[in-house]
């Protein structure tokens, strides 16, 4: 009986993806793509809380025209009490050769617009952060349980390219809603779980658990490893052949190597000053620059959370979107520019998005103070895609006149997942895992590859 992929992994025990496997086994275990990939890796910038599409990437002149008036049609039940339509306080203008319109709080992203696909017709179902985030990250809006995350599925499918780093890295300066469920491997083997690294950690050695020894020198550790190698080799000789044993010894050497190599990746001081300045010294800027370096080092999936909690959740005052845009416009644009400069944009898929958009109506519930905010808006929202086989310089789909609901070419997180996997050379219907009596996949029974997004 051929070994299942799970058994192979167990036996050979490659802690970080499938790097420890011999090439022949890798292909046998399904860690080669199903077809030729356009993208080799993914960087997912997550603006947690809810980017207001009608104030950023989805211009709606009708909001100015009907400012203050009720939205036509039946009264919409929003999460909290909301009032009439509210015009955006920001101006939109066309950017680049493509002339895609972007609001003036994202000027630098605007300047890269010819590389970016703006999807304006995303929609989802749940009005709350947690299920919507789980939908975006795991393809399933479960209340209590968990499903494997997008990143976990990708690393399960493709393995990692780096021997000294996890295949799926999550950078977050705090805890987003849902915490580890957003990057969980769930029922996939735990080695595919996103490794949470705190990109606001003071020093590079704080970023990875147990990466540095507080007291022993490298020489002292080397001597320990030499002794361990003798002891373990003798043990292997004594118990005779056992396929599982040898990899334990190999993993120790990998760990030893990691101690030297991994912290360097997180040491942003080694980037030239002019590069660092373009990202700024904010948490998200540092996260984006680390993402670039991790991608360079061969990490398969990097997800960067904008911040702790749900910073983009502008219930009270839409002007806070401007503050957060100031902290993310430069980092997003710089990342795309630098990937291009380093020749990596072609095979790096960049996703920028959040769990839902914000209502075209003003929110005026009693929890607010300024009373110029917008509520959650799952029926219509925007995300950005770039690189990795994406056709940039276009806006795809549309919401209705007011930006409430995806109206033209509506697409779901399942479609996003299916398309992202497609770009990575994976057929989303074939990337499955047997658990609890059935085959599971990231897109469940949904998802369509959006051909119009592809270059």
């Amino acid at each position, binding site marked *: 009986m051929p*070994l299942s992929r799970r058994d192979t*992994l*167990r036996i050979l025990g490659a*802690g*970080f993806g499938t790097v420890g496997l011999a090439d022949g086994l890798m292909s046998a275990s399904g860690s080669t793509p199903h077809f030729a990939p356009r993208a080799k890796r993914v960087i997912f910038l997550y603006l947690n809380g809810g980017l207001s599409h009608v104030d950023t990437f989805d211009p709606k002149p009708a909001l100015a025209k009907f400012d203050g008036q009720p939205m036509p049609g039946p009264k919409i039940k929003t999460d909290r*009490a909301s009032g009439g339509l509210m015009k955006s306080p920001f101006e939109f203008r066309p950017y680049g050769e493509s002339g895609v319109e972007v609001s003036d709080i994202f000027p630098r992203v605007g300047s890269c617009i010819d590389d970016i696909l703006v999807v304006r017709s995303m929609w989802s179902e749940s009005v709350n952060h947690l299920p919507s985030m789980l939908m975006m990250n795991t393809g399933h809006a479960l209340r209590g*349980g*968990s499903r494997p995350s997008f990143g976990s599925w990708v690393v399960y499918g493709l393995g990692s390219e780096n021997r000294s780093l*996890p295949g799926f890295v999550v950078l977050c300066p705090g*805890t987003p*809603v*849902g*915490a*580890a469920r957003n990057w969980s491997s*769930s029922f996939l083997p*735990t080695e595919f779980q996103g490794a949470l690294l705190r990109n606001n950690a003071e020093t590079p050695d704080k970023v*990875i*658990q*147990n*990466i540095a020894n*507080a007291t022993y020198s490298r020489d*002292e*550790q080397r*001597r*320990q490893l030499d*002794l361990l190698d003798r*002891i*373990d080799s*003798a*043990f*292997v000789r004594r118990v005779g*052949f*056992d396929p*599982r044993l040898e*990899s*334990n010894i190999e*993993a*120790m050497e*990998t*760990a030893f190597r990691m*101690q030297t190599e991994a912290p360097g990746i997180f040491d942003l001081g080694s980037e030239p000053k002019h590069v660092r300045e373009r990202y700024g010294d904010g948490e998200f800027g540092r996260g984006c620059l680390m993402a670039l370096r991790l991608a360079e080092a061969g990490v398969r999936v990097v997800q960067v959370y904008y*911040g*702790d909690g749900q*910073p983009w959740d502008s219930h009270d005052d839409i002007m*806070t979107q401007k*503050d*957060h845009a100031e902290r993310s416009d430069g980092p997003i644009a710089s990342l795309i520019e630098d990937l291009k400069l380093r020749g990596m944009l072609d095979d790096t898929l960049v996703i920028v998005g959040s769990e839902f958009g914000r209502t075209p109506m003003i929110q*005026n*519930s*009693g*929890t*607010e*103070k*300024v*009373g*110029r905010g917008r509520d959650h808006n799952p029926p219509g929202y925007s995300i950005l895609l770039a690189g990795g086989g994406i056709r940039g310089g276009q806006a795809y789909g549309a919401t209705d006149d007011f930006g409430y609901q995806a109206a033209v070419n509506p697409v779901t997180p399942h479609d996003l997942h299916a398309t992202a996997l497609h770009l990575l050379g994976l057929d989303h219907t074939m990337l499955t895992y*047997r658990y*609890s*009596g*059935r085959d599971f996949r990231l897109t469940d029974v949904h998802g369509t590859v959006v051909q119009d997004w592809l270059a």
Partner: protein
Amino acid sequence: MRHPAIAVLFAVSSLSAASPDFFESKVRPLLAAKCYSCHSDSEMGGLRLDSLERVLQGGTRGPAVIPGEPSSSLLLAAVRRTHDELKMPPTEVLSEPEVAVLEEWIADGAEWPATGGSVAAAQISPEARDFWAFEAVRTQEAAGGDPAKAIDGFVNEGLRKAGLEAAPPADKATLIRRLSFDLLGLPPTPEETAAFLADNSAEAYERLIDRLLSSPHYGERLARHWLDLARYADGQSAAYADTPLPNAWRYRDWVIHAFNRDLPYDKFVVLQLAADLLPEAERGENLAALGFHALRDRDDDRVDVTGRTFLGLTIGCAQCHDHKFDPIPQTDFYAMQGVFSSTEDHRYPLAPAEEVEAYDAANQRVKEQRLAIDLFLEKERDQLIDVLMQRTADFLVASYTVAYRGANPQQVADQAGLDRETLDRWLAYLKARPHEHPYLDDWYALVDRGASPDEARQAASDFQQLLLSIHLEKLAVDDRNYVKLGGAEGARTQRTLLNTNLEFIEPVRYYLWRDMTAPPAKKRGLPFVGGVYHYGSDQIERFLGGLWLHHLEVQKAELARLKEAVPPPYPFLHAYRDLKDPKDARLAIRGDRKNLGPAVPRRFLTILSGDPPKPFQQGSGRLELARAIVSPENPLTARVFANRLWQWRFGRGIVTTPSNFGQLGERPTHPELLDWLASEFVDSGWSVKELDKTILMSDAYRRSSTVLAANFEADPDNRLLWRFNPVQRLDAETLRDALLAVSGRIDLSRGGPPQDLADENVRRTLYGKVDRTNPDPSLDLFDFPDAKAHSPERDVTVGPLQRLYYLNNPFFIQQSSALAERLAADAGSGPDARIRRAYQLLFSRKPDGAELAAGREYVGTDTWERYCQVLLASSEFLTVR
């Protein structure tokens, strides 16, 4: 969007003109014969005719049926062929009597019996029934007639057929280490090992087993296996951090105790599902057993976990549609969900009623006193704002004098009779421009170009006027909002706040008002330091006069007294109880909770019930469900548990998918053996310890883990049990416990509330806090399961992140250092004696000459601590052979 059909459904169900029999005997067969080929799964024209919902919803042309109105119903127009375009069925004209059936049915209200909708689907075909897992447990004749040799009879027969040779028996040192880890989760002490090696009697092995089975740590080890299945945790998962379940540990301790006292497994099951419904005498002190489900608060998860844990059936797969592979219709899921949704979470206090009342009352008094103080301080704060705001012009002029004329702020404040701190706040505020409002722009323009004091005074006065008018406007708006919210009470209720449309002043005017008056706020990422005139409860006292201050002090002293008087929280159990009015769950069509179908009577699974399945009669039906699960008629429960125990002993079950005995699960490698174990188990009165001993006494368990090349070629996965499956890496808890055990620091005390697994915590890992939202990173690293879900097996990953733990983790190094100290204390100063002691403690054996030499050589130039760390990181310590 609300579905119009649902409203109609309610209206219809109150009609009783047509009997269900009429529908079942006339209408459904007609629809099935003439319409379903196009209007069930194929949904041609968007129309389905196999549920009332879909009939009422209709297809692309609108509703197919309007109950009570045959003449307006599209269905009738189509079959009568009076419709312009629709003429159905396309290839056949219905007979007059057939049309009349439909007409009568619609005229009488289109009654669609609640259960009828799925009765057809619930019929289980003989083929589906014909599956090994559903067949009765066959009483197996033990090979050779000797029950003691039964297991080996079955296993060896398998080996013989495959032409495989069994590995030789393991040596005694290997056996005691294997048994100790398997049964207790701890390594044997050198003294225990020595005693066992010295016992050359024929009963030595059996005596060892008996000793281990009666150890209190036996229950701890088995309980941890069980807790994986029960998705046990000490908190409910939430957005950022667990909501604590402070008494969850009482369930954990109950499970430990249950295994230790060998509580019969059938009772063990019934108590966990329905202890509250048992007669007092039978219930005993077992109410804590309800934690199995009460610690996870989702009805659908309870159905799924019940199915997988006790029955090895994936009932959860039937939540959205009939199970695709197993004979579990969708109605079965909702029949069981009704049981759990007729149950509400309930805390059973473990204290006398007076104690509970006293605690609640004392807490209520603290709450009220705190509210009274808050209200008083809010009023004082608002008054102070009014008072200070009237001096705004003076503050502005004073700020100008300090900032532009170089005056001393203290002197300026004293001369003008202004509060110094407030003046400093004004100075800081004016310096931090620009602001989010334009109202100070004129002021800045004026003072920047060098205004005269008179000009400044005039501008300041204008600004004060403006500020006061905004303040008045804001107070008026607040006043109206107060009414909309329903007064102070409404304004304190989150739900009212969320759902009330309020008025607001212009945002720019608000910004100015906020900058003067609002409390400090730290919205995630964007701090607001607080309004210039805002003095919160901790800052306001210095403004209060004698009488007021005295009042506040008295009230605060009273609050302190009341807090002091609150007794410690009383213990209670997280549990549940039946609702007063149990209700059947309605089937969610395609799993969509917004699209509910008929209610399904509460009952057990069709495949495991008599024909037809009888609805439960008592309350929610939970006790009947529990009894059905352990009924002798049900072949699954005993098989599933016998298989789990086998899995815990051999590393893999006879069915390797221990929570899925269905079509997609694996078939048993030794079906006769499994049935033999299951029937022995039931015959013994469901004794877990007896079953365990039977397994442990087998030769199969006692084999060495040596790989025999020829066998490996033929059966690399060891499915036929030609060798013992070694433990590839100690699991998370065993690793931590073993480290503490060999370092000598372990605290083996039992039970009680959980603690964080901090480095200084030396209790067994089982007693550490299990967190659902933020799992312990070290446990996580070693594949501790997700405590949100039922976990039938542990993953065993071995990778560099774990190796980093061995290299650098402070806890790991602490144990290395403690082990080094222990060696010195136990074995004195001679290196050989210490190395021998270390090998006995860690590996249950003596070192050979080369090992002694290597150790001596190492500690000749390096530390004992680092030597011990290497031994703890060695494969021999981290695996069990």
